[in-house]
């Protein structure tokens, strides 16, 4: 097994808006310097409130128990869903013996990537799914 070496990293989020319900999808929030198909993603990590209690803008991070109802889909710059509905909890580093999930480096389209709710549990309007993207700039 390999450990990731961080070239660049940034926290990215997907915000739950309205009343969460099964099958609803929420796209990743726009980050201007990452959302121009200009990053090659090679690692991803997700956080629950156990790892990060708030986002940088003060929003609530989804709780560990609620993360069981969430999946993540990543799209590349060709709009291919190259990671399809991976469970959110699988991306939490401490659930994987401390290893960050490594990916074949790919150009991604940040704002087409999304989370999907399969079970709303106690998710609420305004909660955020929070990730760290490990990437190289193109």
């Amino acid at each position: 097994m390999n450990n990731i070496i961080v070239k660049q990293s940034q926290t990215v989020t997907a915000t739950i808006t309205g009343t969460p319900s099964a099958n609803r999808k929420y796209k990743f929030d726009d980050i201007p310097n990452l959302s121009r198909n200009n990053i090659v993603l090679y690692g991803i990590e997700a956080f629950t409130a156990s790892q990060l209690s708030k986002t940088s803008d003060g929003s609530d991070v989804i709780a560990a128990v609620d993360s069981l109802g969430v999946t993540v889909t990543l799209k590349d710059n060709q709009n291919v869903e190259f990671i399809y509905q991976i469970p959110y909890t699988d991306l939490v580093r401490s659930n994987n013996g401390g290893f960050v999930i490594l990916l074949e480096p790919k150009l991604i389209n940040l704002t087409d990537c999304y989370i999907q709710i399969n079970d709303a549990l106690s998710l609420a309007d305004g909660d955020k799914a929070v990730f760290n993207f490990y990437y190289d700039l193109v």
Partner: protein
Amino acid sequence: MGIISNTEAYMVATGKVRDYTETVANNCETVNIVIPKSGLQKIYLPQNSLLDSKKIRAIEVLTDSQVLRATIPGGTVGDVLESLAISAFDFTFAKDSENISNTPFHCMNRVLNSGKFYFLDSEPGDHRIGDSFINQIAALDAKNFVIVLRFWYD
């Protein structure tokens, strides 16, 4: 190191991964920072020309589950940040106004990540410790606790 695919070979060649059994680094330096107030805040690290001129391999944050007290400027000691409070902080590694990485403390604590390090492999000149900072993002009172950052370098 076992190479099992071209992708993995590419990741190694471009410095994106390293085997977890490899030596971390030959030296380490500890930076202790006293949290100056309670609530939300941004704390810049003190300048450190030694680390600025070295290749930084990895960064760790230590909590009271590893060490109870740490030395602070002035020669006394203070209580180390509690493990329970770790989710309230993140760290941004930077140079000038460019943020190289932005990482929750939880990622940099080895106890919480099965002993794995948070590797950066940042070359001399690519980072500046005095431009790096800690953000407290949740409004708990951790005033006067000591944040212990350990930098592994070559």
